[in-house]
């Protein structure tokens, strides 16, 4: 890792809201940072061949549990978000354990998690008396607008710094996972489950560990998104569309590069915003068309994502320097 470059980038990113106060660009940056963290959460397990389409469910659990605990029991999001993360982790355990125990992998695993995502969306919509259903849900505003206790802030600058901190956790966790025994075990499992089991890897436990970690991170992303937007609806934080959005962006940026999901989030969110500004309501859904075309082009010509070839070009140079 290039530490001086990282230090300069960190200082520049932290200093940004102090020198630039444009509300709309900061809003877009906050969204990019939060979604980048969510996409990184998906890639934590996706890079080991565990293609989950249920992360929309985990994100929905994170967002709705945080909002419901605040509105009904006035539980501060400082506790509500950890509870939401725990709920997402429990859900991951409930779906993950039988999947891995019964050796459900590949397409079957993707289908099962897709069903989980659909169930989460339908449950949120069906319990409309509590969650507001498809009309969405708004956490109660703290009197005065901003409060550290309620984790509600009117200023975009504060939210930018919070989102930056949360986003930084993503690459940090990826870095830690890559340097752990868990990574070696999961790489072995991805290559050949039977061979991995034969050399002593507990396949079920190792897969569960990474699934629970990924779901917990996604729950955190959901909770932070809810607190920032102060409005959530089933379509924006849960369901199949959100799950697919995570897969698209992570694959687009590069699944095996720590900053790949961030690049994917930047491109997809900026594309959505630019198309919305350029075409207005005359081109509703064009962003999905662009995602589709981008995904097809990237998978055909850049199967390792946009950052994959860059990483491959830098690697030999770094090893020559070493």
């Amino acid at each position, binding site marked *: 890792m290039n530490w001086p470059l990282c230090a300069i980038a960190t200082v520049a990113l932290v200093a940004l809201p102090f020198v630039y106060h444009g509300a709309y660009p900061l809003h877009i940056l906050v969204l990019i940072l939060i979604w980048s963290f969510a996409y990184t959460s998906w890639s934590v397990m996706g890079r080991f061949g565990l293609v989950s389409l249920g992360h929309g469910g985990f994100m929905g659990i994170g967002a709705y549990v945080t909002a419901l605990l605040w509105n009904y029991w006035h539980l501060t999001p400082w506790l509500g978000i950890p509870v939401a993360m725990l709920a997402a982790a429990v859900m991951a355990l409930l779906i993950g354990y039988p999947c891995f125990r019964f050796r*459900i992998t590949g397409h*079957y695993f993707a289908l*099962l998690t897709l*069903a*989980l995502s*659909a169930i989460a969306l*339908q449950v949120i*919509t*069906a319990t*409309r008396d509590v969650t507001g259903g498809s009309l969405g849900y708004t956490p109660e505003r703290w009197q005065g607008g901003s409060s550290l206790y309620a984790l509600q802030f009117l200023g975009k600058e504060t939210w930018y710094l919070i989102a930056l901190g949360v986003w930084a956790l993503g690459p940090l966790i990826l870095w830690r996972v890559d340097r752990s025994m868990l990574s070696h075990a999961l790489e072995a499992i991805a290559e050949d489950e039977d061979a991995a089991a034969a050399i002593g890897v507990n396949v079920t436990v190792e897969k569960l560990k990474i699934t629970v970690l990924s779901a917990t991170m996604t729950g955190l992303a959901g909770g932070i998104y809810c607190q920032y937007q102060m409005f959530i609806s089933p379509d924006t934080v849960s369901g199949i569309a959100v799950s697919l959005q995570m897969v698209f962006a992570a694959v687009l940026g590069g699944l095996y590069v720590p900053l790949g999901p961030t690049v994917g989030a930047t491109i997809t969110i900026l594309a959505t915003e630019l198309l919305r500004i350029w075409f207005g309501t005359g081109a509703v859904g064009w962003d999905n068309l662009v995602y589709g075309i981008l995904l097809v082009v990237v998978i055909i010509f850049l199967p390792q994502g946009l950052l994959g070839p860059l990483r491959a070009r830098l690697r030999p140079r770094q090893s020559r320097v070493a």
Partner: protein
Amino acid sequence: MFGGFVAAFLFAEIISVSGLYLDQEWGYVFAFALFVVLMFLRPQGLLARRS
């Protein structure tokens, strides 16, 4: 092909009958839940024979 017909009929019935007594969305929840359970119990499919 017959298995596909049976599964489609079963799912449609679950969704429709649930809609009679509860909100329509619960029908989808039950149908997807059944799918999840069946994936664990009979991953080869409802009518498929073990090879």
